[in-house]
């Protein structure tokens, strides 16, 4: 039994990492918005989904115009990801303007903002579904595949107790792009003036406004960055898995939120770790649950475990595994 689990480990780690970095970047969107507004932005998962659809559309357009053969795939990909990122960033800013800012002005209870965010998520899902169906008659969209060379990681040659692992070219791309995104975000938040302003607004909105900081603008910037990252990740998801539908945002959003909670909500580095950890755990559970439980519980229980982790962390360590205990503002 144990031998089996160990043999498979390299493959599980690679797959877990792929899924984990996707969770991580989406988790950052949740954590940034929560940090600054103390609001669970339910619509964020659907912003991610919208990003993947925008990416697919642009890719199809490029293909139609023959760019895909004329330009190196990497450049096409970068253009697509930037366009999708900007579009979803603007979408995020729009959502904030329409659905959250009026409530903030009215000082409405948090419950209400949560409800509007659920509403926004429904509207996004259905609008994308509608457009996709109108175009293709079927809302499951299969993207043109690029970067699908296969590589083999010969773990077996180095350590005989491992099996070899294989991965797609897109895996490297996903990993590289997310690392670039995460590092530049970290630098932005911790080293730049606007990053400092964001942190200040997150800690004390009223006082930040006394420092000549336009709080609404900082919130807009936060939404832009969080949503743009989410949308760009949507493109990565599309490249990695090839097929998207309007409902991918829901499950993935909940998982990403779990990751954010795991890492300590409001904590950007925590969200990164939380995401990668959750991806690894989930992949490990899917690959090994039935081996461990002798068939009593199969891979279908992996989500149950994800939710149980979420609930346990929220109950016993609400500041997250990497978060510092912050005295709650009552």
């Amino acid at each position, binding site marked *: 039994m144990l031998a089996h689990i160990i043999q498979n480990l390299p493959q599980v780690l690679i797959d877990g990492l792929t899924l984990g970095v996707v969770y991580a970047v989406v988790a950052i969107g949740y954590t940034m918005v929560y940090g600054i507004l103390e609001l669970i932005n339910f619509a964020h998962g659907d912003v991610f989904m919208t990003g993947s659809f925008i990416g697919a559309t642009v890719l199809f357009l490029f293909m139609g115009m023959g760019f895909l053969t004329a330009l190196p795939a990497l450049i096409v990909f970068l253009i697509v990801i930037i366009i999708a990122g900007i579009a979803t960033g603007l979408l995020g800013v729009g959502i904030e303007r329409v*659905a959250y800012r009026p409530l903030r002005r009215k000082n409405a209870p948090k419950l209400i903002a949560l409800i509007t965010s659920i*509403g926004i998520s429904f*509207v996004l899902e259905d609008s994308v579904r509608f457009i996709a169906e109108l175009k293709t008659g079927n809302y499951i969209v299969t993207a043109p595949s690029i970067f699908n060379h296969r590589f083999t990681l010969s773990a077996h040659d180095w350590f005989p107790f491992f099996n070899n692992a294989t991965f797609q070219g897109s895996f490297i791309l996903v990993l590289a792009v997310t690392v670039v995104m995460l590092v530049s975000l970290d630098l932005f938040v911790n080293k730049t003036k606007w990053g400092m302003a964001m942190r200040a607004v997150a800690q004390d909105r009223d006082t930040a406004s006394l420092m000549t900081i336009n709080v609404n603008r900082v919130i807009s910037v936060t939404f832009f960055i969080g949503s743009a990252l989410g949308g760009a990740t949507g493109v990565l998801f599309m490249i990695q898995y090839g097929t998207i539908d309007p409902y991918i945002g829901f499950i993935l959003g909940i998982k990403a939120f779990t990751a954010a*909670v795991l890492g300590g909500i409001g904590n950007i580095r925590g969200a990164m770790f939380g995401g990668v950890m959750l991806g690894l755990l989930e992949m490990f559970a899917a690959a090994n649950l039935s081996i461990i439980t002798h068939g009593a519980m199969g891979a279908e229980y992996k989500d149950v475990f994800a939710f149980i982790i979420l*609930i346990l962390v929220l109950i016993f360590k609400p500041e997250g595994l990497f978060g510092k205990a912050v005295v709650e503002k009552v």
Partner: protein
Amino acid sequence: MTSLGALFNKIAESKRNQIILFIAYVLVTGLGLILLPDSTVAFLLLLFSILILYYIDFNLKAKWITGLVILAVIVPFISSFSGSYQTYMEVGTLVGIYCAMALGLNIVVGFAGLLDLGFIAFFAVGAYSYAIFASGQAAKFMPFGHYPLPGGTFWIFILIGAFVAALFGIILGVPVLRVRGDYLAIVTLGFGEIIRILLNNMDHPINITNGSMGIASITPPNFFGISIGSSSQFYYIALCIFLVVIYIVRKLENSKLGRAWKAVRDNEIAAQAMGIPLVKTKLAAFAIGASFSGMMGVVFAAKQMFVDATSFTYLESTIVLVMVILGGMGSVPGVILGAAVVIILRTQVLTNISNWLSSLSATYGIPIPPALSPEKMQLLIFGLLLIIFALYRTQGLIPHKNRKVDVARLERESAELAHKASSGGADS
């Protein structure tokens, strides 16, 4: 139009005229339904009389009796002339089921201010508790007893469903209440998903729920030898439970517990300071809200004669939430109206418009893409309703009446007070 309105106002000023107008309305719409038995609009207009009744200046007791007569006698009687009799009664039954559920959620969200996004789990628990024992399913894991249980046990199961659901409410509540307000939403969502996944997977190692195959051939209820199978019969069951639920909610609203809920909702810290036991109060809300759902789950299982996990998704939980928000959080008549509107919208209006559109495209060859069908737009419509109501009409269709304090203000003030206290005392 305005002069017409003024005239109407003048007539409606006297109580007697109001009653006459109301009776006339019921008669006209009733007659309308008899003459146009297949017109859904006529049926809806007849139902609409209940809302008018609510707004009339009338003795409260008389109102209740009139309402009951309309719902229990006039509506079923008149629609029995129609070929759509069973459809109408099916809609009526669904409205009853969802009204009770929405009232349950209203206790949790509207009264106690706890956002529950996994409410459908309790409905599922109720439905499965009847389904398992009223079909051959129980025989697969129970070492004793004969299954399926006879239809007469249905009536006991309504209570059992309520009890089991309440138990689950408490099981969920105990750990969850340690969690802060907005985290609660996520935790309950997770809980709802866990229940659904478990129901879908508990066919091995021990087959309890029959997994994704669902449980079929559930014994219909039996009422003194009469097997209850048609929607028109379930309509009365739903109506009875609905009345019981309203009675309980009305009683609770004005009880000590009801006031405690509202105090907790409006200001948790102050409520605690006044000596309200937070945990007990919140648990009571969870348990009572869940029990309504559980009861209706039993009815649902008996009516469908088949249950599987696909009926209990996150979407269903949010639909119940839409009912509460649309009607008005904390407002009992509002929530009832909200449930009715959503169900009628889902099962009647959208379907009819879709069918009309597709017939239009069939007969006149107007190409209307199926993606445009309003029936498929449900998510969009409910999403927009949530946003619009949350932004512009937080108090819902029928606002909660005895709201004397402005919640938002109270919250802000208490926050300020607390802030003052903490910042004043924290340093030395």
